[in-house]
């Protein structure tokens, strides 16, 4: 229910401001570039699958400003992310951290590939060889066919 309320609030209050607004942009282009990179990896929690860099919502704007404040204060990229995770939980990261409960998520693509490759190799190896000689029964059948002429 809380999420629904937040969503409604975002739709009503969010209005149609642009994603990153001119007044948010930092003077230092290096820091601004880092801010954009970080923002693209953070979820706007009241939106539907948007990063705070893309979102028009007020909350996204607040978070963008927060990210820039932390960067201006001298935080590293990781410190900024950690700060936001501490505040809003892991939900804020669009790229989940590599931890026990996301192990399967991160490894699954490559597990599928490796297991699939293994399966294919085993399956193809098990099949009879292409030039296998005829067995007795087949040979007799062949002879019978040839004799018929």
């Amino acid at each position, binding site marked *: 229910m809380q999420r629904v309320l937040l969503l409604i609030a975002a739709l009503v209050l969010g209005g149609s401001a*642009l994603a990153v607004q001119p007044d948010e942009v930092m003077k230092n282009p290096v820091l601004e570039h880092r801010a954009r990179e970080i923002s693209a990896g953070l979820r706007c929690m009241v939106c539907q699958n948007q990063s705070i860099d893309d979102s028009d919502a007020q909350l996204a704007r607040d978070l963008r400003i927060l990210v820039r404040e932390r960067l201006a204060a001298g935080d590293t990229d990781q410190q900024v992310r950690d700060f936001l995770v501490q505040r809003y939980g892991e939900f804020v*990261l669009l790229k989940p951290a590599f931890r026990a409960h996301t192990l399967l998520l991160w490894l699954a693509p490559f597990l599928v590939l490796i297991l699939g490759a293994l399966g294919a190799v085993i399956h193809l190896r098990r099949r009879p060889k*292409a030039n296998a000689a005829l067995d007795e029964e087949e040979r007799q059948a062949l002879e019978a066919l040839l004799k018929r002429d």
Partner: protein
Amino acid sequence: MLVEAGHFALALALGLSLIQFVVPLWGARANDPVLMSVAPTTALAVLACVGFAFLTLTYAYISSDFSVLNVVENSHSAKPLIYKISGVWGNHEGSMLLWVLILCLFGGVVALAKNTVPMRLQANTLAVQAAITVAFLLFILMTSNPFRRLVPAAAEGQDLNPLLQDPGLAIHPPLLYVGYVGFSISFAFACAALIDGRIDAVWARIVRPWTLAAWCFLTLGIAMGSYWAYYELGWGGWWFWDPVENASLMPWLAGTALVHSTVVMEKRDALKVWTILLAILTFSLSLLGTFLVRSGVLTSVHSFAVDPERGTFILGILVIFIGGSLALFAWRAPLLQQGGLFAPISREGALVVNNLFLASACATVFIGTLYPLALEVLTGDKISVGAPFFNATFLPLIVPLLLLLPLGQTLAWKRGNLLGTVQRLYAVFGASILVVLAVLAFTYGGPVLAPFGIGLGVYLVLGSFNEIVTRSWTRGKPLSVAWIKARGLPRSTWGTVFAHAGVGLVVLGISATAWDVESLGTMKPGDRIGAGPYQLRLERIVPRQEANYREDAALFRVDRNGRELGTVESMKRLYVTRGMPTTEAGILTFGLSQVYVSLGEMQPNGSVGVRLYYKPLVLLIWLGAVVMAFGGALSLTDRRLRIAAPARNRAAPPIAPVPAE
């Protein structure tokens, strides 16, 4: 009255589908041609009924019949005609009706293909198709009836979601659905083969055109949706790894694998069991996509249906069809004979690798989309899986596949020669490396990875056309001979070449996004803003009043090096009925590149926030997809796939004996 007739026709269609489901299945079992021949007749009757129902709903929309609840909720009398029509499928109930209509349309076409599909196969296939129709008709009639009346009738409608009032969205869902639902035919054919316990190259030859056609439509549908998101959502992105997008990407990946594995099956009679499984999985993913989008289980940018009751119903359909077909597969697949041996290094081997990578990529999207849901249900932990995750996992799986693609296309069937294949691609390798070096040199100090992406794109395009060159051109012979030879190559070869070159174009377009330039500014009339080689001057802001919205339109003059190139208009709209604002980006196209400008908030002092992009080569992303679909379509016109064509073949008798049906 007409609306009630439509409702009745839908109920009638349900009854007829039940007959189409039970009787032919029994007929195939009892080997009774009379019972089997019920299938095509009923399929056409069901199509007529559902078609009629769809027309009545469309009529209710066109005539703005506000006594129908669905029309009230999604239409408005002042809406332009095209959006009145597209409004029919711009909502949950109507889009499900479109879904079933397309399902029945495919059934109808199979029913008419009497002379090409063996009777038992046709009967079983149409029976499976009917089972799907029954399930979805029940779903519509029980939970999502678009024909419900509103008493008393409303005076005016609530309008269609303004984001959906767009020509792109008028054609996106039908294209997408033809793709999605088209895979139902491959699925039905696969189940029919399992029921019959019989499958051969004839089966593959019959199924391949359907799969290919569905794949072409899905490709176009996805590209259309992506372009729509690009110009309508106003922030210039074209793919968001949104669950709804993933829902269409998964069947596309599986379908792409299926298109390739049916080739192996048709030509070499191998990979039968896998092809059958893939056909089942592809449509299962289509069903899953329908479930994800329609149930609202994942809220995302374009979900417009949120209703748990419906969700449960579709989940039931999902479990029955996926579970049922997989059970059928486990039970009957061991009966299928394996054929067609091949060496690991061969075209078949390459296509196995293709399938492996595509299936893994599909699994990645599947897991990334559903993992957060599963985790939340199981542990209560909430995590997000967004674009950065997919970029980090999907790309490493796709890039090797793309690198191998021209090699696979060049390898010979049955037993290939890797060294010879590589030698035939020397020129392509050389040219691609030169391109990478040139781009690196010209853009020194810019993005590092993107030049390699450009090289990969060039490699794919050249590698595809290399097949034409090596097959038609001989050293010392005049070009005119090569041209005649090239024209004589089968259409399916040309189709492959175009489809693969299309992939290369998409890669080029995606790589070029690294050189996008973005500018932000707050502007007053007379102010300038620049991005890349282009400068824009805000000329004026004009308020306008249209029938169903009002807007502020900003007119920009576009210059390049002081020379005027034209004007572009970007709008900020407010749809009055829903009180919903939208941004209409102003887009100016130069060759394959675009200048993209979207408006932000209007300030009280008369200035406006402006976001400007210069996007070099961006059009290649969608153009590439269109070229891919064109390749597929070209392949469809191949003599081999044109049904019953061998009989009309004016050339010598077929080289390979055609298996008896």
